């Protein structure tokens, strides 16, 4: 404790006090723990296999090669398919886009109905929905298999889209409900007086005003759906496996020699989409996860 007896006024700033050295030192060391895996993944993916066998995971590459990246993307094998992670990537894209649109569309309308068009029982359904967010997915996995079979979507991309819509609903509905509830009632009433109805008010007034919260919802859903493994592995077939599932199958396959550089390139490729979103969105990501925090 250096500055114990402080006079009033702002703290004097000394760059090299013992306190600062301790503070920044600790933060630097902790930062290394957090950055280490990313560093290791990047350097490993840029090495060749002979170099990996000679060195260790932390040594920087002597000879930089992108061969592992190319192989991970277009040649790595899962079972009999040897067309690389690109298949999983495009599957994930095909799952992601409709899932994000559908889940956010449905949830925003739900939130809007719950905040401005309450009807008898609406709050009860909402409460059930929120409690449902805490139920372990494992309890609902099999009944959903039956439901998807009944409507003929088991194993298809659209089945998975539906599952993502259902499980994204609690948190997104909460997000939109709270946002729409903060929009002044007067605005809503004025639109009603002008003769606007449910959908008219939604599309002409609420939607344009809610753009920031839509961005938060999109960030939340894109990272969440892209990172999903559980639903992907259960509700799709090998041909429609999302990227995370395919990645796990490539890296943890028991056949063949382990190609660590290819594995790390594949891992990085899969992590790239959420990482780009994270670094590009900054504060909005924090807002998204703060909202998503309820989901856990």
């Amino acid at each position, binding site marked *: *404790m250096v500055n114990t007896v*402080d006079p009033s006024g702002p*703290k004097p700033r000394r760059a090299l006090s013992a306190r600062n050295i301790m*503070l*920044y030192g600790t*933060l630097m060391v902790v930062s290394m723990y*957090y950055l280490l*895996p*990313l560093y290791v993944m990047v350097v*490993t993916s840029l090495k060749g296999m002979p170099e990996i066998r000679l060195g*260790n*995971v932390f040594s920087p590459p002597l000879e930089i090669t992108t061969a592992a990246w190319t192989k991970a993307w277009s040649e790595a094998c899962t079972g009999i398919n040897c067309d690389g992670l690109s298949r999983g990537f495009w599957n994930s894209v095909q799952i992601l886009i409709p899932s994000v649109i559908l889940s956010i569309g449905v949830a925003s*309308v739900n939130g*809007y109905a*719950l905040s401005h*068009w*309450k*009807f008898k029982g*609406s709050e009860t*359904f*909402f409460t059930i*929905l929120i*409690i*449902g967010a*805490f*139920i*372990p*997915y*494992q*309890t*609902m996995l*099999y*009944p*959903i298999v039956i439901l998807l079979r009944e409507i003929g979507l088991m194993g298809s991309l659209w089945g998975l889209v539906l599952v993502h819509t259902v499980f994204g*609903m609690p948190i997104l509905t909460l997000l939109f409900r709270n946002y729409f509830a903060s929009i002044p009632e007067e605005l809503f009433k004025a639109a009603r007086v002008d003769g606007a*109805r*449910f*959908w008219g008010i939604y599309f002409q007034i609420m939607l344009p005003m809610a753009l920031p919260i839509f961005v938060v919802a999109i960030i939340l859903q894109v990272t969440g759906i*892209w*990172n999903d493994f*559980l639903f992907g592995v*259960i509700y799709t077939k090998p041909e429609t496996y999302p990227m*995370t*599932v395919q*990645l*796990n199958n490539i*890296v*943890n396959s028991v056949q063949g020699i382990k190609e660590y550089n290819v*594995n790390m390139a594949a*891992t990085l490729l*899969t*992590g790239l989409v*959420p*990482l780009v*979103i994270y*670094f590009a969105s900054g504060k909005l990501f924090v807002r998204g*996860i*703060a909202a998503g*925090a309820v989901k*856990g």
Partner: protein
Amino acid sequence: MTSQSTAKRPVQLLRNLSAKIASIPMILTALVVFVGGTAWTVVHSFTSSRLLPKLNFVGFDQYERLWSTRRWLISIENLAIYGICSLILTLLIGFTLAALLDRKIRFEGAFRTIFLYPFALSFVVTGLAWQWILNPDFGVQGVVRGMGWESFAFDPLNNSEIVIFGILIAGIWQGSGLIMCIMLAGLRGIDEDIWKAARVDGIGTVKTYVRIIIPMMRPVFITALVLIASGIIKIYDLVVAQTNGGPGISSEVPAKYVIEYMFRAQNLGQGFAASTMMLVSVIVILVPWAYLEFGGRKRG
């Protein structure tokens, strides 16, 4: 509920109708999937279903078998060890980092970005990255041995005694940033005057945190606790990616048990019973929290 005029004009009927039609997906999700699905699983956990769900009830047989299966007991033990360690360490690390970042430091944004980025990554990516770092030949153990300490042994992923701690390292790496963020938001919500008052009274920084700030942040801690706890129970993809339950069955977890019995071993009844146990554990955690949080006052 907003006050409604008693007169039933057609417009009002239509208004309710639109909202109701728009809410059909929500109602179906809440009633069919959440309530219906959960009830269905709980009911079927009392049957002898194997390949297909059947309604021939056998009482608590599945549960008796579950609690005498070694694999389930290991899963529960792992979950307990992982859970307790993860809870304590994540709270400790999350709070300490938040407190450090709250000391009006420079580059706060950069540090925060570094601590939080793992949270953007999936558990599969996390598990695979740490699987490689903990590789006995090329990873941490290999590096330390290469530096001359030949007898150094740190091989959690191939040692059934400590494998769960290998997973713990990865789990904390992925999730502690989120808790740091929540704690930081909590710290920012505390009045500056508290600090001034503490300083006037001559209370040291650490003591101020322990005696004053942490008790004031009780709601934040409870939220963090619930978050970490519900995440722990769900742990699945991290284990699948990092160890796939191995070596042997020494890093199995309940969520993995459920899925293997339901979708691979074709023993649905066991899967249903195990998932019902997971549900029960969530209820045990959540009910006291809901009581603390909402009990006594009207929920918003």
